[in-house]
């Protein structure tokens, strides 16, 4: 019996790992349903309860629903942290990670593969949130092309937070530790410009925190496509911050993976 093993190309490895990630995701309703339902639930509450905010002078739109529609996109992306991190931590805990490490699999292909399932959920979320928003009466000021860019930004944000989750999962090897990040992410979300435009936040400290909070720029990028149209600065900041978080998350994940996968 002769060995037939050869090292496949990075894209081939990534394809197989991505396929596994998608299959796993589709077979776990608990991973798909909450990230779809909870953000819509919160959107409904916010849109019905905070509608009076549009009466504030200089509020950028007359529809609070349209203003708040960026919120579920962000909230859904936070679920990506949980999903990506939990999956990899479970693989470490079950020993499946060792099985993968014993193949010619490369580290980058593992990271790309693990993020694919997250992006699948992110895509489903983007379609569901935009569909629900439009059905409820919101309109997209940037038009059809804006929807494409909205999806692209949304997926970029999901990938960015997914990379943070991967780092947490690889570093700790504990699904519980990854889930511990969830409240922290929500604090970041609520300390951003999610509920009000930054220049309308009355409290100085809140305005300062929202200004240095990168989540504000992600939300404002998403929101600009819905309520403004084409705002180059908001989009550049949105994509730029998403890319920066993704790059930091991927770099940290690569280091954590190198420590975790100590194979010679």
């Amino acid at each position: 019996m002769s060995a037939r093993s050869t090292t496949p190309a990075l894209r081939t490895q990534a394809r197989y790992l991505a396929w596994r990630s998608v299959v796993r995701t589709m077979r776990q309703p608990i991973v798909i349903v909450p990230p779809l339902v909870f953000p819509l639930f919160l959107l409904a509450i916010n849109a019905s309860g905070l509608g009076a905010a549009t009466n504030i002078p200089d509020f950028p739109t007359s529809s609070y629903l349209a203003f708040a529609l960026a919120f579920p996109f962000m909230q859904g992306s936070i679920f990506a942290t949980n999903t990506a991190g939990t999956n990899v931590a479970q693989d470490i805990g079950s020993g499946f990670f060792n099985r993968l490490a014993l193949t010619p699999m490369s580290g980058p292909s593992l990271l790309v593969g693990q993020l694919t399932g997250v992006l699948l959920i992110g895509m489903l979320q983007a379609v569901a949130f935009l569909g629900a928003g439009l059905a409820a009466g919101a309109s997209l000021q940037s038009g059809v092309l804006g929807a494409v860019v909205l999806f692209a930004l949304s997926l970029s944000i999901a990938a960015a937070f997914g990379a943070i989750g991967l780092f947490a999962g690889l570093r700790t090897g504990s699904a519980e530790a990854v889930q511990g990040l969830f409240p922290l992410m929500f604090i970041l979300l609520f300390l951003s410009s999610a509920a009000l435009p930054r220049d309308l936040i009355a409290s100085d400290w809140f305005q300062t925190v929202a200004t240095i909070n990168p989540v504000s720029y992600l939300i404002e990028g998403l929101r600009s496509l819905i309520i403004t149209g084409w705002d180059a600065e908001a989009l550049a900041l949105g994509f730029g911050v998403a890319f920066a978080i993704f790059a930091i998350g991927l770099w940290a994940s690569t280091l954590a993976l190198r420590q975790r996968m100590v194979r010679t």
Partner: protein
Amino acid sequence: MESSNGIEVEGLVREFKNGPRAVDGIDLRVRPGEIYGFLGPNGAGKSTTVHMLTTLLPPTAGRASVAGYDIVREGAAVRDVIGVALQDAALDLLLTGREHMKLQGGLHGLSPGEIKQRGDELLARVGLAEAADRRVGGYSGGMKRRLDLALALVHSPRILFLDEPTTGLDVQSRAALWDEVSGLARREGVTVFLTTQYLEEADSLADRVGIIHRGSIVAEGTPAALKAQIGRPTLEAVPAEADQVERLEGILSRFGDPLPVSNGSVAIRLSDGTEELADVVRGLDGEGIKVADLQLHAPSLDDVFLAKTGRSLEGAGDEQVAEEDTGEEHLQRHQPISGASAPSPEDPAEAARS
């Protein structure tokens, strides 16, 4: 070091932080096509050795080559030629058996056609053809072990590492796995490095056995040679009439050294081995002594373990695990705490299938 399908290890050491040496300078050589049984209790250093030889754990000192490739400098080449089934089959419970074959084959660079052909062949070979499209979460322990073995073989490895492959299996599943492993070595020339805590497994399956205790190899050789080192078999007899015990002792003492026994029986260690058995029977017959029971006990590997370590393999693991903090959480998996006890019972239907 030789560039064949063998394994060569020289002075291999693994130390963990704040712990003793889990592996303390072992030397061993496994010949191509050989089944090498690595026998020892829990915590002895078996799994740490396997993790080092399979490139999952860098050694602290020493060197080793697998199929001629250095485990430290040529890790990727080692992984290409080995198949590994680690302790506790690590499977994705959400995937089916066939999907596991696809993933494993794909990551090893097999083409889709090869994955299908090889996957179907191996699933049938381990008796999982009918269950191939069921999710692994519904498999029994024996089925998971067999799938694990099939996955280790998907890329036709030259050397197979099996870390306690039958722990927790019922007798029938264990026998089926032994047949498969034995066939791989005999028919296909695959070298097998097998760790076990079961004496019977090492005795019946391995061409040679290495006994590891507290990180060191304390004995090595064929099972027969190891047992022969310990020496002569013992003979135990129970007289048909209780008042004949002293006469029986007198006759048997001509053939060997008396051993302490109870329950009205008499035992000796035979001076010249089993060849004397016929003389013993003739002697008893000549003196008119009838025996209710006559048993010949060959030395076992447990006797070897006892002679080399001063304790029985049975239960030695419990003491060792309790005494040592080997820091093996670094390996991400833990060995079971139980000693060399009988396997846990399993699904009878699964047992019947295998």
